[in-house]
């Protein structure tokens, strides 16, 4: 049996660990176009102020040898013949018995009218290193996009002493989280920390003026030294575009991480999975999902049985000194009950979105302790009508939950040993 | 089934009753009963019995279901700690009727003696009821914790016994006629009937009249209600 994994992110690592929990013997080949050991994408910012990759490695260096994984780093996948089960790389062909596609996502880099210079992006090591290199002689940076990468990058840049223009097309940062209050609080936080935040702004065009770049927005005009695009990511599906693999917003997988092709699995940012909260297939590029999907795929590839947990968005982030955790659906509809609580002084905010008595989304800002209790309530579709007030106003507390619910939770996660 | 109780002692009669129940009898007529006690003690079954003659003490003690129709007077301690069932008496009753009664009904056509309904209890839907046709002796409903006693005072204008409801801390006693304060036990209050009371009385008195083969109707406005003043009438007896 030969397992082949394309990709080296959390999903790929999860798959290796999943396979090895069942099968210690068979060959695993891991192919990555990057020439690095697996690293933590959410920690990529750190590459801006440190020299080597050590600090953000996702697993220790011995991971591949310990798990008896052969690696092929720095090679691109050209094409796949799913019938013959053959992968064509730059200079070799590899046969697989079971294949996992975990190619992840790539940055969306927009075209700017009138600009032919480099637009940096920030989704992998190469991009990070290239940005870092160019920053040494650049002081004014325009960051396009108020999503997680844009905001976090801006925070790093300002801490490095740069002048930052954060250009956001919506009314607030992190609007994708779906909570206006959080956006509002963060807008302030960002501005208080010296970032030039330009909201509801669109880049119309840009022009290179020597080493400077003139950026024309719909309302403003700014001059900067570099442009970094942080307009999100898309699944890396290019090698499969002409194959019979079913792809929508990503490679479509079922709850066992199987694609429509036998012996081909996919996991991580490249996939779209069923999100019961939305009742549709979604691409949710976050690390826990990637690892879990990979792990699940690994088990199923190696003859075990595993079903992916319910998948929905969740985020834990810190912007300057503001802690935020969001999960589930925060874009409420009319039929949902929305409870929120705000203590502006202590910078504590909490919001619960409840549908038919069940929690479908929650946002916590400030006091994020024990957020996992809420997360579990969403994951397991539990009815919290009797305790919603307490969950909103008090410290989140396991003992707030009704007794039988607590007992079920304990039962479902743990096993009686003796 | 007809059981001639002449010459039988209480154990023999109870054995026959238990056997009859085992044989699936639904009704038992007991003739020539005289003084045998403990009849139907602890019996758990919905059997109906017609008792001819004076049964002994503790009739229906700890009983849990049977319906007994007695065509005579009854003696003391009838319905002692009775849990469920019914005792209908076409005559008078002695002392301590329905001691600590927990459920079921006792209907008496005539008078009852002292300490009727002492320690009566109830919980939730399970409410014991005693209905007395004529008058009741002193200490009616003593220590009553719950349950209901009704006194119809058919032979007189009101009940003039003493220490009525003394120490009661729950339940209610309905009496036809006006009660004087000096007849009341400590910690008991007189009030008039509310809708719940009236509704309850209407139903129970209909059932009573049916069992007594009478067509009599009662004017509910002529009743007063005795209930505890305070759920803890003796709280201040102690210094902690």
């Amino acid at each position, binding site marked *: 049996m030969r397992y082949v994994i394309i990709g080296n992110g959390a999903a790929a690592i999860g798959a290796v660990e999943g396979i090895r929990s069942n099968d210690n013997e068979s060959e695993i080949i891991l192919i990555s176009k990057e020439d690095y050991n697996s690293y933590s994408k959410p920690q990529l910012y750190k590459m801006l102020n440190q020299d080597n990759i050590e600090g953000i490695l996702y697993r220790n260096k011995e991971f591949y040898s310990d798990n008896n994984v052969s690696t092929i780093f720095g090679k691109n996948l050209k094409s796949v013949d799913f019938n013959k089960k053959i992968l064509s790389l730059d200079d070799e062909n590899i046969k697989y018995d079971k294949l996992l596609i975990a190619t992840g996502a790539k940055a969306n880099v927009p075209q700017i009218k009138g600009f032919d210079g480099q637009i940096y992006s920030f989704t992998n090591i190469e991009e990070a290193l290239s940005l870092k290199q160019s920053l040494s002689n650049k002081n004014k940076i325009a960051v396009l996009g108020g999503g997680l990468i844009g905001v976090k990058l801006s925070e790093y840049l300002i801490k490095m002493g740069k002048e930052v223009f954060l250009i956001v097309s919506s009314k607030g940062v992190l609007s994708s989280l779906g909570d206006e209050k959080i956006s509002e609080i963060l807008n302030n936080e960002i501005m208080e920390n010296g970032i030039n935040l330009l909201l509801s702004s669109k880049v119309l065009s840009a022009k290179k003026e020597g080493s400077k770049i003139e950026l024309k927005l719909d309302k403003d005009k700014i001059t900067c030294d570099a442009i970094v695009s942080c307009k999100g990511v898309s699944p890396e599906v290019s090698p499969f575009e002409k194959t019979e693999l079913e792809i929508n917003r990503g490679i479509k997988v079922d709850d066992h991480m199987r694609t429509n092709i036998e012996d081909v699995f996919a996991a991580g940012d490249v996939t779209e999975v069923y999100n019961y909260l939305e009742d549709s297939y979604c691409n949710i590029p976050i690390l826990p999902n990637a690892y879990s999907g990979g792990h699940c795929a690994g088990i199923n590839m190696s003859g075990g049985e595993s079903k992916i947990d319910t998948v929905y968005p969740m985020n*834990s982030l810190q912007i300057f000194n503001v802690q935020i*955790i969001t999960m589930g659906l925060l874009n409420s509809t009319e039929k949902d009950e929305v409870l929120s609580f705000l203590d502006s002084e202590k910078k504590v905010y909490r919001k619960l979105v409840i549908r038919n008595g069940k929690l479908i989304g929650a946002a916590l800002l400030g006091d*994020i302790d*024990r957020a*996992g209790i809420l997360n579990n309530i969403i994951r397991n579709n539990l009815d919290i009508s009797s305790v919603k007030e307490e969950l909103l106003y008090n410290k989140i507390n*396991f*003992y*707030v939950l009704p007794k039988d619910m607590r007992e079920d939770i304990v039962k479902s*996660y743990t096993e009686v*040993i003796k | 089934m007809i059981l001639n109780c002449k010459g039988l002692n209480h154990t023999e009669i109870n054995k026959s009753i238990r056997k009859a129940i085992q044989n699936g009898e639904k009704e038992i007529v007991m003739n020539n009963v005289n003084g045998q006690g403990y009849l139907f003690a602890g019996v758990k079954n919905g059997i109906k019995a017609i008792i001819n003659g004076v049964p002994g003490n503790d009739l229906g003690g700890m009983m849990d279901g049977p319906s007994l129709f007695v065509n005579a007077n009854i003696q003391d301690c009838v319905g002692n700690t009775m849990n469920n069932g019914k005792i209908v008496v076409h005559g008078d009753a002695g002392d301590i009727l329905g001691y600590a009664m927990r459920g079921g009904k006792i209907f008496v056509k005539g008078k009852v003696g002292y300490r009727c309904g002492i320690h009566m209890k109830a919980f939730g839907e399970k409410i014991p009821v005693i209905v007395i046709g004529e008058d009741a002796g002193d200490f009616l409903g003593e220590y009553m914790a719950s349950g209901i006693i009704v006194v119809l005072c058919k032979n007189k204008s009101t009940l003039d016994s003493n220490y009525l409801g003394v120490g009661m801390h729950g339940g209610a006693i309905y009496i036809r006629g006006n009660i004087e304060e000096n007849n009341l036990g400590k910690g008991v209050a007189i009030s008039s009937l509310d809708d719940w009371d009236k509704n309850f009385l209407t139903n129970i008195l209909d059932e009573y009249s049916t069992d007594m083969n009478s067509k009599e109707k009662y004017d509910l406005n002529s009743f007063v209600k005795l209930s505890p003043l305070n759920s803890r009438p003796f709280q201040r007896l102690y210094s902690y």
Partner: protein
Amino acid sequence: MKRRIFCDEDFCIGCRLCEVHCTVKHSKSGDIILAYKFENDKEPSRMTFEQKEYICGSIVCMNCKDPLCIKACSMGAIKIEDGTVILDNERCVGCWMCVMVCPFGAIKRGDNKAFKCDHCHTDEIPVCVLNCPNKALKYEVD
């Protein structure tokens, strides 16, 4: 090897001695009075005591069958060692992904890093269990 510590909430009396002993156990000196009165950097307890009216209990890491924290950790800092879910303090960067997913709320936030119960896995019986005066904390090991 498997381990589980759990609190029988019917018998948790809310004394919070488990927290005291946990703190002492993870202190430098290991002595209760020194730890509390003289050690400035005493480690806070890894227990989370919670209460609602008279119902209370101490939450510790339950060593889940399939720990969500391991899957969520962005740094691969959490792993199972010796039957125990262990958080590697060196690797932790304080991203709070584990806090976000732990269904019991058993992972606590320190200044920059998360920390959690280690089941005193080098001891025969965890100190909190050993010192629970009402045997509300129970320890299972196999």
